[in-house]
């Protein structure tokens, strides 16, 4: 019995202490409001952002950018990954350049894209697409390369057309690694999007936080931090769930 209590309660000790210290530091003559506000103020701030519809606008802007950019980058990555794995010619001509660009973290491309595309939607979609493209292309390439030679030979013996080989063999066989690549691409795209919005945006979660910082609204910043974490977590977990459902046949 005490061991169950132990297991359930111990994880709450440290967060509880932090919360107590937080309340203690902000009650009475505590820290100045620009540095720390009491937890209740953060909740109030959250309610205010929620009821004014401000939060919904920021969320909508961020998620729209994320999904559009991701859709572009991921589908390009999927196509390129298959080409890279299936065609020796494509691999010889584009492989080295692909590997070289992959070495540069997405975030380092932000200033370049701002100079090329301006600070409007274009550069945000481009950076999200870029962040999604590489993990998806790489995972697809590895997945296609991993297809057993025997299967391809059987397909050749049956004289399947390239389209059928693609639809009936390559796509199903690469589902598990590609899903992992898509998940990686989506979470990376989210991280880079937040950074891009911190740098230059009219709206979005990142911009909300940046404005909060400039106006010393620590409650807004804290709401933003919690939301970025929650969204990232939800995207990752949602994808993991989809992976488990889609590749059920593998374990069965």
């Amino acid at each position: 019995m005490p061991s169950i209590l132990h297991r359930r309660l111990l994880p709450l000790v440290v967060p509880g202490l932090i919360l107590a210290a937080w309340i203690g530091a902000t009650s009475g003559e505590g820290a100045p409001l620009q540095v720390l506000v009491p937890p209740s103020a953060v909740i109030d701030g959250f309610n205010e952002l929620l009821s004014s519809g401000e939060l919904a606008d920021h969320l909508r802007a961020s998620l729209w950018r994320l999904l559009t950019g991701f859709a572009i980058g991921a589908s390009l990555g999927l196509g390129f990954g298959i080409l890279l794995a299936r065609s020796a010619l494509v691999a010889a001509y584009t492989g080295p350049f692909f590997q070289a660009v992959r070495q540069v973290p997405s975030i380092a491309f932000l200033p370049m894209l701002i100079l090329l595309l301006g600070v409007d939607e274009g550069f945000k979609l481009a950076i999200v697409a870029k962040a999604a493209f590489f993990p998806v292309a790489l995972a697809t390439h590895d997945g296609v390369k991993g297809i057993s030679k025997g299967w391809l030979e059987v397909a050749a013996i049956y004289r399947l057309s390239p389209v059928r080989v693609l639809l009936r063999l390559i796509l199903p066989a690469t589902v598990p690694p590609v899903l992992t690549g898509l998940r990686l691409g989506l979470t990376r795209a989210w991280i880079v999007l937040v950074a891009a919005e911190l740098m230059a945006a009219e709206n979005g979660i990142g911009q909300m936080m940046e404005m909060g910082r400039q106006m010393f609204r620590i409650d807004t910043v804290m709401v933003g931090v919690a939301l970025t974490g929650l969204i990232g977590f939800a995207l990752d977990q949602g994808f993991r769930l989809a992976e488990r459902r889609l590749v059920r046949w593998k374990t069965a």
Partner: protein
Amino acid sequence: MSLIAEFPPNFVHADRIDDHDPPPAWLVALVKRARGLLLPVLLAGLWHWASTIDASTAYAFVPLDQIGDRLLLLLSSGELAVNAGSSLGRALTGLALGGLSGIVLGSLMAGFPMVERLFGPLLQAFRQVPLLGWLPLVGLWLGSGEGAKQLLVAVAAFHPLLLNSYEGFAQAEKKHLEVGRVLMLSRWRTFRFILLPTALPSILTGIGQALAFAWISTIGVELLFGTGAGLGSLMHTAQMAGDMGVVVLCVVAIGLMGYGLNLILSLVRARLLRWRVTG
């Protein structure tokens, strides 16, 4: 393929009239390798062509010779070296500070379930926030100086090493630990001769991830804070001034340095894990 192999070579090539010697192997290899250069050269050519259209495109696509001039300038003034050194130092300091705390806490969490229960769920929750998402909060608390940057880079290096060393230490085999108990090894010796070798591959994997994260975050925090020295700050200033040449050079330098760091690490890793191959 196998069909062709069954015929004598002169049969396959009978339709070719030329009697010339085949090109030397080194030339074939060179041409094969050079194929990879075609795309970047082509893109550079397009870039240069775009710079010549008119003034508005020349703003974004700076002529290649201007990038060359910028490179010479950055090199001769020592600006590139100073900023690259600053970024490198920040990344490595962050790796050392954050990484060591990650290893210590990870090994404690693996060794003492109590520590794991106290800190595990909390750290797991904190890990969900993208590192740069912390930036506005850290900026409010610590300003945009060296302390804030170093803290964020250290946190970036902390998580991968925490996870990997926890996993590494947790997978120590029971029978090995039992042998240690039979031999009545001291706590330190158990750690040194049983736990550490078991965990080492995992920790090295963690160092690799932590180094990559530390490098990316270094560039990120420099870019977003835009203060002090560093390749990210240099790039930030250049972007504000519309100096595409310097921005491009920074991107290349960041990629090369990241690649170099990774290369060095994989050499170290191969050396440290020699015993695994021979054993």
